């Protein structure tokens, strides 16, 4: 690409062709105020805060005007500042921007601009119409009264999330954020990825749980990786004291580039299973709290007969600890091996023309992979062939059942760059799928750290032994007479207590540092963000105690 020479505020600069004035100014260290603009979204030019003088005629929006050779740009003449001031006054004049009652006060781009321009009064009589508020979503609140119609939410929902749930309806001052066909959030096709909240510059879309619990300035923002599935998205965790306020997608992460799913953003923060806070032993049907020493003494006595079953949700370090302590009697609780090994990476999803999604509902389980596919399929840049793909079948004309696998494969073969995406496959289907020579294969591992189990050579086995040690967060077990069942687990559910004999509390989610191997085979680290409750054994404690048994 060629270079373009231009002048911004008298400063000679050279930038690559195809950049906007805003990007060029940024490179030159010149700041232009923006509101509807968002780095990760396509230019939109709705708010006119970024207007600049660039040649004859009307002022131009810097975010949506591309540089040309010899262009002379002025970014802050008195005339420009006056126009921006008027725009800002108009924005404040419409709808409810009384900051003191707003959750986003102190963390609001509109308010920031108000301070920046020294707004000390309402130039226009403030608007008194009432606009709807939608509280029907479990995690998100939409208050149209706080909306400045920048459309960031709708653009993010479509361009990044690929969900196309949000749009704007009506026109002019009657414009409102619209959900599907004029629905409430609760009855909509929203998949709760939360992108809209993350990009909203004002208090129109807010996180219900984090509301009024603290502003960004009062929180520490910790960058780490999500451990809810093997995609391994980058996340930003907002922590205040020892409490997680909210989780945002990390715009800088090479994996997800800011996009998250319901599992990564909301579900762990709404976890309500009772936590186990001390080892407990059942004797004669009665549970008694015991010390960690006692607990490991019991394990040590049973060691000779015990078989360990590890969940794939655990960090590599914990898997390793059990493996080195109990060697060949360590197995995976769930399936480990892919039906067909991966030959593709997430990068291959960016330019495929055909996606063949088989047997997995990406909206439910691997939301970010779903976004990568949906944002290309819905605007008709690629085709989706869905075979038993749950809610994903709603966005394609090519939706099949397993019995029509041959028709589906025939349809997929019409593509030039085909990526097959799957997790577990029923018998017969993987054999049909794996013989395709032109396809790339993207296996979505069953659990967050299935790849680590694989790397450690831990195989799956159905538990049948008398003495079983389970490790994980979703343990269920049958029980026969004479069994002795141990569970290392963060949760003491009634179901588990009815079958187990010994429970040992372990850390969960962001309570412990740990390594995860993503579906692409990359090692990512989940950091410790909060300190676990007293009595919960960390990975390190368990590892050192296991060494001694």
């Amino acid at each position, binding site marked *: 690409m060629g270079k373009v020479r231009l002048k911004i505020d008298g400063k000679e600069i050279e930038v690559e062709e195809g950049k906007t004035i805003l990007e060029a100014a940024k490179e030159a260290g010149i700041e232009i105020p923006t509101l509807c603009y968002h780095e990760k979204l396509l230019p939109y030019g709705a708010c006119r805060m970024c207007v600049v003088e660039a040649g004859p005629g009307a002022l131009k929006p810097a975010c949506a005007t591309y540089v040309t050779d010899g262009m002379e740009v002025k970014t802050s003449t008195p005339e420009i500042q006056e126009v921006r001031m008027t725009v800002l006054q108009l924005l404040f004049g419409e709808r409810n921007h009384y900051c003191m009652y707003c959750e986003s006060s102190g963390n609001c781009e509109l308010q920031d601009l108000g301070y920046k321009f020294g707004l000390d009064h309402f130039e226009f009589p403030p608007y008194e119409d009432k606009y709807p508020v939608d509280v029907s979503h479990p995690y998100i609140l939409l208050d149209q009264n706080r909306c400045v119609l920048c459309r960031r939410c*709708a653009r993010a929902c*479509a361009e990044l999330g690929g969900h*196309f*749930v*949000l*749009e*704007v*309806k*009506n*026109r002019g001052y009657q414009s409102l954020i*619209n*959900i*599907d*066909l*004029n629905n409430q959030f609760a009855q909509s*096709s929203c998949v709760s990825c939360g992108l809209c909240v993350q990009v909203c510059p004002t208090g129109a879309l807010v996180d219900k749980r984090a509301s009024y619990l603290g502003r960004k300035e009062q929180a520490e923002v910790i960058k780490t990786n999500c451990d809810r599935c093997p995609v391994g998205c980058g996340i930003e965790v907002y922590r205040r004291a020892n409490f997680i306020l909210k989780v945002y997608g990390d715009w800088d992460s090479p994996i997800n580039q800011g996009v998250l799913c319901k599992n990564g953003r909301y579900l762990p923060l709404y976890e309500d299973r009772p936590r186990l806070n001390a080892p407990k032993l059942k004797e004669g049907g009665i549970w008694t709290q015991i010390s960690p020493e006692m607990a490991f003494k019991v394990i040590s006595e049973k060691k000779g007969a015990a078989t360990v079953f590890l969940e794939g949700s655990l960090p590599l370090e914990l898997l390793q600890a059990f493996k080195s302590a109990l060697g060949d009697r360590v197995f995976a609780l769930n399936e480990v091996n892919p039906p067909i090994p991966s030959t593709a990476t997430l990068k291959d999803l960016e330019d495929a023309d055909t996606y063949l999604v088989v047997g997995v509902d990406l909206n439910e389980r691997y939301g970010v992979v779903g976004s990568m596919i949906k944002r290309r399929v*819905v605007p*008709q840049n690629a085709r989706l062939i869905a075979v038993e793909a749950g809610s994903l079948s709603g966005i394609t*004309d090519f939706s099949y059942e397993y019995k029509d696998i041959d028709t589906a494969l025939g349809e997929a073969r019409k593509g030039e760059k085909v990526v097959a995406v799957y997790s577990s496959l029923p018998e017969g289907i993987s054999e049909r799928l794996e013989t395709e020579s032109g396809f790339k294969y993207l296996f979505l591992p069953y659990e967050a750290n299935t790849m680590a189990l694989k790397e450690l050579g831990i195989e799956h086995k159905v538990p049948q032994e008398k003495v079983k040690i389970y490790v994980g967060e979703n343990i269920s077990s049958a029980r026969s007479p004479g069994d002795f069942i141990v569970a290392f687990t963060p949760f003491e559910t009634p179901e588990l207590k009815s079958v187990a004999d010994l429970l040992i509390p372990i850390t969960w989610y962001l309570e412990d540092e740990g390594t995860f191997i993503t579906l692409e085979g990359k090692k990512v680290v989940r950091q410790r963000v909060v300190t676990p409750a007293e009595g919960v054994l960390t990975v390190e404690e368990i590892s050192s105690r296991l060494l001694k048994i």
Partner: protein
Amino acid sequence: MEKVRILKRFEPRKENLLSLLHALQRSNPQNYLEEEDLKLAANYLSLPLSFVSSVATFYSMFSLKPRGKYIIRICESPPCHLVGAESIIDTVSNFLGIKVGETTPDGLFTLELSSCLGVCGVAPAMMVNEEVYGNLTPEKVRSVLNDLRRGK
């Protein structure tokens, strides 16, 4: 089904959305788009519901609620405004007993406003369905509406 026949007159391409919505609206005796129409259009053209809904609510020629047999659109652009469009609006509103955006209870008339109808030479002007009326005075408007009411 009649609606499916209307869909089939168009190729399933995104560009046909506006014409398709117009055709569906015309086929409705009450001159409006039902929720079902938007769903049909979205499905037929493989477009997100939110997008179709956004288009249908943006353009003032589409309505999502039932309208009358005759849709009166009075021009409110400056040339008409300067020669008394406002009194024409008041006349129609009083004569029919409805406000702008409303429909008479007998389902005969809907009153809407419109941007320039392109007949500034005969301002003030209004359009009733496809017919344009110019050089309007309150008397002329009343007689036009009386004629329509009597089915002339």
